[in-house]
């Protein structure tokens, strides 16, 4: 972590440079018991390099929240790093099935799954981002979800309508993977944003891993592409393929063969299969680069090629 030495004449900067390793960022900013908001959605733009580093540093007692949670949340539950997940849906989908570890732990009462509607989780983040203690919505009205979360029914102070008040969440740390950012923390994302606009504004601290650390001058060329302003960001972590094996819009597909392998371990060995996966693929690797080296060049190339077909 370096501090700007001051601008050249006429070249004022935007403050402190925040480029650091995943190891340093997690060490500094993520404490045991923290609420971590996870960027991306399901197997898209998941901040895998950052999440695996949290596991590598063996944090415990975490709460994970996310729009839709995929197997990254399962890893945290399986090894006991997290005991609460807040999301609208947790699983994998398709041929990879449900989140069996979540089922096992929730059914045994050793973990909590706080289930909001998808708009409900969105409003939690957005209220936090807006700096208001709640936001009103119509979703969840009339459903049994109301009694099992901390939302509450309210009467509209203007119209008298029944509404749901969703309490704000301001997570301790947001973990986000993005296409690019400068050293100050101005971050740009291509394609769909998932909930990362709000997560970044809601969280108390923000760690963004980026495919490319770019010059601030490149940010200035397309300032209307900036999604997260530098003053919301604490750390910028260089991480090429930082969401791999999950997809990155416009760059690479998810590695679904790897998903098959993972799902097969779970099918065969349940929680123990997940723990073994984490031992091997997370603790067995010094960092995300080492994890990436377990994949072949042709696998990664294939995941790039499909983008040309689709977009």
């Amino acid at each position: 972590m370096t501090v700007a030495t001051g601008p050249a004449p006429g070249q004022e900067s935007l403050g402190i440079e925040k480029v650091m390793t995943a190891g340093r960022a997690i060490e500094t900013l993520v404490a045991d018991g923290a609420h971590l908001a996870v960027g991306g959605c399901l197997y898209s733009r998941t901040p895998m390099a950052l999440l695996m580093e949290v596991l590598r540093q063996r944090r415990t007692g975490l709460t994970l929240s996310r729009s839709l949670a995929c197997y990254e949340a399962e890893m945290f539950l399986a090894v006991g790093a997290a005991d609460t997940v807040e999301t609208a849906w947790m699983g994998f989908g398709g041929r990879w099935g449900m989140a069996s570890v979540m089922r096992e732990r929730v059914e045994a009462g050793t973990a909590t799954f706080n289930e909001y509607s998808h708009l409900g989780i969105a409003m939690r983040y957005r209220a936090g981002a807006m700096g208001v203690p709640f936001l009103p919505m119509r979703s969840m009205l009339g459903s049994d979800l109301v009694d099992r979360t901390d939302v509450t029914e309210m009467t509209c102070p203007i119209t008298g309508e029944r509404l749901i008040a969703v309490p704000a969440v301001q997570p301790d740390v947001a973990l986000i993977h993005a296409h690019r950012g400068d050293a100050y923390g101005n971050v740009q994302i291509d394609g769909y944003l998932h909930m990362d606009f709000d997560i970044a504004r809601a969280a108390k601290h923000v760690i963004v891993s980026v495919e490319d650390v770019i010059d601030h001058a490149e940010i200035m060329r397309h300032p209307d592409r900036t999604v997260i302003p530098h003053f919301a960001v604490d750390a910028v972590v260089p991480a090429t393929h930082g969401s791999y094996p999950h997809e990155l819009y416009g760059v690479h597909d998810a590695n679904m063969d790897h998903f098959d392998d993972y799902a097969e371990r779970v099918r065969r060995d349940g929680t123990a299969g997940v723990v073994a996966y984490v031992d091997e693929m997370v603790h067995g690797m010094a960092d995300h680069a080492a994890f990436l080296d377990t994949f072949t060049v042709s696998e990664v190339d294939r995941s790039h090629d499909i983008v040309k077909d689709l977009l």
Partner: protein
Amino acid sequence: MTAWTTQELIAVSASRLLADDKVVFAGVGMPLVASVLAKRLHAPNLTIVLEGGIVGPRIRPGQLPVSTNEMRCAPDAAMLTDITDIFLLAQRGYYDYGFLGTAQVDQFGNINTSFIGHPDAPKVRLPGTGGANDIATSCNEVFIVTTHERRRFVETVDFVTSPGWLGGGDQRREAGLPLGGPSTVLTDLARFTFDPQSRRMVLTGLQPGVDVDTVQDNTGFEVICGEISELEPPKDRELSVVRAIDPDRAFTG
């Protein structure tokens, strides 16, 4: 091409519910297959919206997405935005149709995708609502599409994840939900609609070769019959397009 799978039958029947020039909020799987099918046949101007921030894509045949948040959802999209915007556009009332699948559905179209058994000590903890509760709340018209099994069509759902007509009558409106509500339940055996007063499910259509007794045998509550018509079997053209869309039968096998 006279034979079809259960899922193909449902996909074809569901696609016929979609009129041209409308907006459909489609989940992955069956809803998306039905929507793509409709768009390729009788509803070329249908706009598909997907939860993952995607408006107006042209899904590639043979490249069906597994989740609503991945690039296979996005080819030739008109707008890529965020998930929150997609659901707020729903709440604003822009979406004509929504599709829901279900683990359990009751006679008033209430849906459970959260718990089997008591929520405090569930026999099965299901993956959760995802966007289903929001679709059930805000889309102007909701179609419930599922395979027809007795364990799915239950007298009372263990948990209301997504509200249908709640206890029937005016209860949905009284709960603060002035709009939407399920209009149709479509299965491999039958079509149900809802009585405009009681909001109770009424049998109004039978899939080819199915009789009322078969429907009752596979339904965990009393089947009330309305004016029943036989649903038109899938046409060769429909089946050939379904098979072009999902050649590996990932969702229609």
